[in-house]
């Protein structure tokens, strides 16, 4: 658990500026107000009622990506994102959003995300949209033009969903392959909500990769969404409900680790302990749960054995997810795994420490800033001459795809989740071994 609450940590900022160079938004504009130090000061002034709630402060607070890079850089661990969230909560109290927005939000956060089945149904609809003439029609009629550029781009880069017939439930138990590897332990996969609808293939590959690295893998069917989106939209009650449910589901399993393959989900799961700071009856259970959370790369590097893997001779680079590197503190594992793949040229991405600008729905809410951040990022990608950008989080994956799209690199650059690349490379190695 964090030693200080956000309120306490707000007062420990000594204005040393150590966070400045880590901040992606400050990197774009150079305005002190677009950096962590400025944000802490503004939030504090607002929370102490020294400045009023108005459009200006609302705009300032909404420019933070909440990426946590500054927390990582701060010598005294000032919880900048949480402090910004406190300010946002105060702003929200003063400003009721329009009825329609509230209703939509409530529907989305309370009636959709927490329910895997409903989400799957939405997935079916989306598949239908993609497969039927509807998408063609929408494009033809220019309906998308009514939406902001970033939303248009997102529509264009959404992955093609698997048809409902192929989106079968994930196997509830997969034994670790012990021919090549010693048994490394028993793990449970956290499948995520949106992840499981849009990136079912990646979840499937995660199971394969873990099993081939020596782990027995279970996937409990009654797990629910991690709650990240609700939490960050101020729906704490729903978040707590989901957290309790997940804790109950996973503590029944007797596994060594709970594995996440999405930095955003993993980071939220690690926050559960913090959520129950004031609920002693849940705190212990939450702590035990949190101690088991691992990112898939991390657990393979530390506990498992990646089987022989062979690439396709391509040049790859890696864009880390902020939540993975700064909140989960998984910094080297993904690159270590990539370096173990034969016939793959890995080039480090310059300034990879900076967020890609995706940050939940930031790219929809702050299209200009997100666009500038992404444009800069794509410049670095070009410097590496990579054919493949590897990511470890669905948000970053979509954002990098949007970047590839807007820079017109669709034909030369692919964006791939690290699990997919690794699973395919392992498979390739196996095929080569059996044929050669």
């Amino acid at each position, binding site marked *: 658990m964090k030693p200080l609450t956000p309120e306490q940590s707000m*007062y*420990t900022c*000594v*204005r*040393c*500026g*150590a966070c*400045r*160079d880590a901040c992606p938004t400050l990197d774009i*504009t*150079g*305005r*002190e*107000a677009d950096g962590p*130090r*400025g944000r802490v*000061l*503004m939030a504090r*002034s607002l929370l102490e009622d020294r*400045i009023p709630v108005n459009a*200006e*402060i609302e705009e*300032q607070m909404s420019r933070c990506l909440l990426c946590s890079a500054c927390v990582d*850089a701060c*010598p*005294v661990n000032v919880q900048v994102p949480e402090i910004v969230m406190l300010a946002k909560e105060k702003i929200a109290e003063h400003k009721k959003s329009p009825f329609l927005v509230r209703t939509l939000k409530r529907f989305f956060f309370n009636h959709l995300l927490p329910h895997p089945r409903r989400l799957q149904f939405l997935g079916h609809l989306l598949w239908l949209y993609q497969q039927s003439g509807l998408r063609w029609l929408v494009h033809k009629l220019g309906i998308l033009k009514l939406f902001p550029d970033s939303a248009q781009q997102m529509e264009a880069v959404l992955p093609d969903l698997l048809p409902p017939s192929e989106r079968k439930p994930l196997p509830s138990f997969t034994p670790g392959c012990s021919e090549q590897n010693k048994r490394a332990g028993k793990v449970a996969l956290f499948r995520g909500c949106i992840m499981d609808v849009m990136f079912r293939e990646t979840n499937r590959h995660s199971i394969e990769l873990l099993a081939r690295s020596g782990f027995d893998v279970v996937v409990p069917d009654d797990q629910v969404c991690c709650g990240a989106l609700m939490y960050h939209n101020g729906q704490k009650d729903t978040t707590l409900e989901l957290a309790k449910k997940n804790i109950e589901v996973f503590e029944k399993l007797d596994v060594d680790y709970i594995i996440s393959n999405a930095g955003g989900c993993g980071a939220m799961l690690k926050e559960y302990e913090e959520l129950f700071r004031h609920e002693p009856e849940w705190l212990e259970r939450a702590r035990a749960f949190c101690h088991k959370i691992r990112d898939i790369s991390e657990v393979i590097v530390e506990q498992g054995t990646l089987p022989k893997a062979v690439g396709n001779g391509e040049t790859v680079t890696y864009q880390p997810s902020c939540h993975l590197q700064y909140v989960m503190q998984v910094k080297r594992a993904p690159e270590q795994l990539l370096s173990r793949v034969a016939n793959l040229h890995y080039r480090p991405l310059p300034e990879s420490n900076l967020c890609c600008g995706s940050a939940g729905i930031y790219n929809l809410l702050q299209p200009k800033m997100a666009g500038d951040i992404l444009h800069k990022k794509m410049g670095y990608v070009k410097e590496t001459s990579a054919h493949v950008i590897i990511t470890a989080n669905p948000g970053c994956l979509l954002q990098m795809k949007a970047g590839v799209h807007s820079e017109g690199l669709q034909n030369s650059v692919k964006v791939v989740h690290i699990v997919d690349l690794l699973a395919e490379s392992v498979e390739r190695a196996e095929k080569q071994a059996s044929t050669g």
Partner: protein
Amino acid sequence: MIEKIISELQRVIDKERVLWRKTDMMTYAYDASFATQLEPKEPEAVVIPLSTDEVQACVQLANKYQVPLYPRGAATGQTGGAVPIKGGIVLDMSKMDRIIEVDDENFQVIVEPGIIQANLNAALKKYGLFFPPDPGSSKMCTVGGMISNNSSGLRAVKYGVTRQYVLGLEIVLPTGEVIVTGGEKSRALKSVSGYDLAHLMIGSEGTLGIVTRIRLKLLPLPPARGIVLCSFPKIEQAIEGVRAVYHSGIIPSAIEIMDIYATRAANKMRPDLNLPETEALLLFEVDGNKDIVALQVKTISEALKSHTDYVKFSDDPEQCENLWQSRKIVGAAVGNLKPGGIRVYGGEDICVPFSRLPEAIRRIHEITNSYNIVCGIYGHVGDGNLHTAPIIDINNQQEVEKAKQMIEEIHHLAIELGGTTTAEHGVGIVRAPYMEIEHGQALDVMRRLKKTLDPNNILNPGKMALPT
């Protein structure tokens, strides 16, 4: 009137880089100093220039309308140096941060002032070169800010201070002319042609000109380093230890001291460091090629043997990193000495003659005890430079007042011991009250220089006890 200036500024500079909204102004009202944390001072406008031309345009407008102008790097300064204490316009130089040219054949680099020290060195690494002055703030401060404060840091014992590396500057004068001193076209490493205007600018804290381009001398990056960590029951023994090392014929790249409170704080933050909590902990760093490092580490440990029974050393990179940890975290760790307290920057940069270090440390402890304020001391002992870190509850008015008085006493102590109130952080507004005692008649010459170069008192007015 400021509206008029803002609209004129917007005509020459991108609207997005001319700031005037209330919240923006709040965020330019401070640096890292205790003083501006207590009393922030907001500007009326901020400009983020991208070129010398834009800087020049700002200076011309400031003269036209007679408003003050304050150059600012990353505002990591601890003296209020870049803070607009008289209103007016802040020039945020941090976006002019390009490396213009690495001339590795001549061991030189030309940069814009906003570049961050650590980023410059990261870029120089592939040439096997480096810019040695390394303040504790190297990851955040700008080279322009370093020049203006003549910053140094851990490795000043061996490599000296920023001043020693500046070969030439492009400067926008307070009256708007652009001069190049120690020219960009020249690549000479030495020159005595004319008055040394570049060095007049260094340490002038943004009162005599705005630095827009910098030509720096570089040194070869030492491939290896080694660390010796040792602890002494008494401060006097520690100083004897340093003397013994000097007499062994070695100039370490850094010699750092931590007092018992600083050590205790480091242990609290990182129990695995497990440092002995005695009156003084010393860290020696040596660098050079691998063989030389190994030899130096051995010689230093030998030299220290008769002064202490606790010596740890290594020339293995990973081990070194570990031994160096206590020094790296101490600035942040001291905050742990008192729950609910934060470290404030004040009286934090005194420098005394080497021979009087034990007395200085003892007397600082006496002073801080008499105020009942927890305070860690650490610093660059090889130069006699001590950083004191008072930890107070900044929301407690009584404690704030006590701290102010205590800081005053520490400054007077430095002067009494034949030292200075600031070794590297500068004067700004915080040390202005001591300028008269420290400089006497020389302050008058500084004031005359200021008046000659800046007749309208446009640039960074109210700092360094210059005319107001």
